[in-house]
């Protein structure tokens, strides 16, 4: 909760600088927006780190299969990064590139979660065949 002021301040400064630079040099104003987004995401990553540690503690103590949790975390990581990039592309007006990036992210997450599907299917088949 302690880095919220930093995040808000960085976002407002980034937005103001990006808009003020728009008239002079559009490329660098877009880069200012990207820089602000990256700074905020890295600061948010620290907060997410503590959440992940608690999740890992619970799963290891409750002896839940940690493989599924790692798949879940990987999917969240992929989602965060791809959302950042596709929003940057959309801001710069390239909505076609943004949708390609989102398609690639969905494919990556599905591939990442494939072992989980197989595990569930085997469990279901095991129940049916009994």
């Amino acid at each position: 909760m302690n880095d919220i002021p930093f995040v808000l301040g960085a976002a407002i400064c980034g937005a103001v600088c990006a808009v003020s630079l728009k008239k002079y040099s559009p490329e660098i104003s877009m880069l200012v927006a990207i820089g602000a987004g990256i700074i905020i995401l890295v600061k948010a990553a620290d907060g997410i780190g503590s959440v992940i540690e608690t999740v890992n503690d619970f799963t290891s103590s409750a002896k839940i299969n940690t493989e599924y949790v790692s798949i879940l975390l990987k999917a969240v990581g992929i989602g965060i990064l791809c959302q950042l990039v596709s929003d940057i592309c959309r801001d710069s007006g390239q909505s076609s590139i943004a949708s390609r990036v989102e398609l690639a992210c969905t494919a990556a997450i599905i591939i990442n979660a494939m072992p989980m599907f197989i595990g569930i299917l085997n469990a279901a088949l095991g129940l049916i065949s009994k």
Partner: protein
Amino acid sequence: MNVDLIFKIAAIGIIVSVLSLVLSRSGREEQAMMTTLAGLIVVLLILVKQIAELFTTIESLFGF
């Protein structure tokens, strides 16, 4: 990795645009274009370092 990165990039942007404006007014169109490209490259180099740091943080965090 704090707010002054934003202001550094904005300052570079303003300087580059003023320089290219002055150069283009004084008739040197090519140099104005070169100045804009140079500013862009400098900002991109700064930003690439931040992006690399972001990716290593996210990878170490989410166990890629």
